[in-house]
């Protein structure tokens, strides 16, 4: 783990704030004067993980850049719910691009700022998993390859949600989407396809790659702040549950994100120049069923026509993540 957690003080650094901590030890989100990058009145669904994740990330970036921030935004839920004409929720300089070119637009902004001598202005590009791992992937890889001075944030809710829950290359195996129906011998999304973009980003050797979830705010803020203090291409992959697309209760958004991390399904780590430098350890390991069962997109794996062998394959993925990244306390990880 990269940041220094407060071990005790009742709730330590698990909670957003803590009255027993000094102001400078507290989170950006606990502050009365946080930027509130996405204002109230946006049209995201009840319990939207992406709306929450975007405020967490952009507020932290705003705090670190002292308010000198420009955001480019790919098409996707985040754009649709935040900016329906004639309203916008954004309280940062924000530009809408098309679905596939947020990274390229951000590159252009960064170049323009450099020409203008505005080294103080920092640039963020953001998009969903569709705009990042599928449609915008070429632009993103180019941005990495040129090492442009942009922090790219992918809000991963594992499918195309705003168009009606179609599969993306970030959709997990076995999940039901509108295009991967739970029918046939291997219901839901197929195994063995899809992209692990954090690892692909690492393969570009860029200065910083990190994953985070909306369930660990302090870890997320630490990673955004760290990224904002670096230059060159940086990539943050943020896990944001989608109550609508995943079929979860709106109040369970954070719990589901926590379970994704605690089961090992979503490894939370950071890497510099292609090398893993830190992982957020699993605190209380739980079996994969705990993560799958509250989600209707995995409902076909349980009940009358259960698929225990499919559940076992998903468990194997989680176990591989745990081994690969050394997510359990007892295990040593050679790269750390």
């Amino acid at each position, binding site marked *: 783990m990269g940041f220094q957690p407060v071990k005790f003080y009742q709730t330590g650094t698990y909670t957003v704030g803590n009255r027993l901590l000094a102001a400078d030890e507290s989170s950006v989100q606990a502050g009365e004067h946080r930027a509130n990058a996405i*204002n109230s009145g946006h049209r995201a669904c009840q319990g939207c993980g992406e709306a929450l994740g975007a405020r967490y990330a952009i507020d932290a970036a705003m705090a670190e850049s002292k308010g000198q921030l420009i955001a480019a935004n790919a098409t996707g839920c985040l754009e649709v719910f935040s900016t329906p004409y004639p309203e*916008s929720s954004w*309280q940062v300089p924000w530009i809408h691009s098309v679905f596939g070119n947020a990274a390229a637009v951000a590159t252009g902004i960064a170049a323009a700022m450099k020409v203008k001598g505005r080294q103080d202005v920092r640039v963020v590009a953001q998009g969903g998993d569709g705009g990042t791992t599928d449609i915008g992937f070429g632009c993103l890889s180019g941005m990495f390859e040129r090492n442009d001075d942009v922090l790219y944030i992918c809000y991963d809710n594992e499918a195309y949600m705003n168009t009606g829950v179609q599969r993306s290359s970030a959709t997990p195996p076995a999940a039901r989407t509108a295009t991967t129906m739970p029918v046939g011998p291997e219901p839901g999304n197929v195994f063995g396809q899809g992209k692990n973009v954090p690892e692909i980003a690492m393969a570009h050797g860029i200065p910083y790659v990190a994953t985070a979830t909306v369930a660990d705010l302090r870890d997320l803020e630490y990673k955004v702040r760290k990224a904002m203090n670096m230059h060159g291409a940086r990539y943050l992959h943020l896990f944001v549950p989608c109550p609508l697309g995943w079929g979860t209760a709106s109040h369970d958004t954070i719990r589901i994100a926590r379970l994704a991390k605690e089961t090992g399904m979503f490894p939370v780590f950071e890497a510099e120049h292609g090398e893993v430098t830190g992982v957020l350890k699993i605190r209380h390991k739980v079996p994969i069923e705990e993560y799958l069962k509250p989600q209707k997109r995995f409902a076909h794996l349980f009940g009358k026509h259960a698929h225990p062998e499919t559940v076992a394959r998903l468990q194997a993925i989680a176990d591989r993540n745990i081994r690969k990244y050394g997510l359990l306390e007892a295990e040593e990880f050679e790269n750390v």
Partner: protein
Amino acid sequence: MSEPFAITLKPGTSLTNLTGTWRTERPVYLDRLPPCNNACPAGENIQGWLFHAESGDYEQAWRVLVQDNPLPAVMGRVCYHPCETSCNRGQLDQAVGINSVERFLGDEAIKRGWKFDAPASASGKKVLVVGAGPSGLSAAYHLARMGHKVEIHEAGPLSGGMMRFGIPKYRLPREVLDAEVQRILDLGVTLKFNAKVANIEQSMKQGGFDASFLAVGAHIGKRTMIPAGDAAHIVDAVSVLRSMEGEDKPMLGRKVVVYGGGNTAIDVARTVKRMGAEPIIVYRRTRDRAPAHDFEIEEALQEGVMIKWLSTIKQADIGKDGGEITVEKMQLDDKGFPQPTGEFEKLEADSVVLALGQDVDLSLLEGVKGLEIKDGTVQVGTNMMTGHPGIFAGGDMVPSERTVTVAVGHGKKAARHIDAWLHGSEDKPSPKHELVTYDKLNPWYYSDADKTVRPMLDIIRRQTSFDEVQGGLDETNALFEARRCLSCGNCFECDNCYGVCPDNAVIKLGPGRRFKFNYDYCKGCGICVSECPCGAIKMVPEDI
């Protein structure tokens, strides 16, 4: 809209879209009743005083504590802490050491000389309190803080009642008791010793008292018929413990048989062990059925007290130079009652101490109209008043569990009702908040922290001296222990609701002022309720 279409929009203009209209349920903040507060017989606001201790403000913590209980240093030693038994943290790792933090605060108050706040104004009313035990002292304290003039009439030569004459020194050092009693007297309470009230109505009339609170306790040891050659060697436990406080220590010999399985039996056995004797407890049932608290039995066994379970004393043959007793072995029947087996055994014995419970001395109530006495105790209403208007009673003399904590609670409750009665009104306690159970909490957010273990005296010194057995916490580990509190059901301003709202619909009001919802934009997703660590928010349906 003066802006050109789809070129630029003003920041934050989504505020015109009142997403609160989507909602079918709304979150509301509430204070729920923590299980510790609910379990405390003295009605302490435990979560409330721990809140202040958590930030290191021990004086404020103590001041909140003594709003309900004037004897924290005593209570932190002798209370059987039902609060800890019910503590929600017990389901996470171990219960919060509430009792040890209470003791720390009590000791800190004595060390630093903190005093009670004087009453704001005098009421002009006079109240007589009979008995200077925990219940009488508690009532006197609360009445004095309400502005009434209080006189305590104590039959004996010292204050404290059973805290002094029932609880051995190794559990409650006398200087601690004296300090806490003195602080109550410093409020202006008059305490008269050797002032036995023979007739309550007469005493009230003579002294011009407007009301009285009776708390004479239960200090007459129950006897049972044991055929004995020489009855001089059969004594009762209460008088043994009482004589420990005087010059003449009891002469019990070397082999002391203690008859009974309650806390008093354990206290006597541990006391005589410290005086060099070899105590053996004889009890008719089994350990798990003994009324004594198990930790006390455990501590007694550690100190070398012998216990003979499933046995009754049939006969005692003890002369000047010692003798023996005959015990009969028992066995439990289907219903758990002990039944004789006809098997006998002889035990060496120099004396037998009966610890079979205590009766109340009700002589002061003779001739008082309206009083109801049942099973040797005075019956009181829910307002602690006896059948005779203006005479209230509490502590061991009324039907209830006989502990210091219950007695202190009676004193407080009676004081509130006496105060209301003196003002010609009725004390109506505000309705209790709903209890917060473990399933209402989100334990993820609490740091992992095991309970602090209190130091125990070396076994050798426990067998030979009356030094206090259990040690206290120092400032660092008391702070740690206080911070283990989950603050069940009561907001402790962790900012979680403020942080986790995807709609920015929680308004932070600043330190000490908590939060409020902005219902114009709250969509009713309920994340704040799920992620509140302590269960201080709930969803309620909207009127649709």
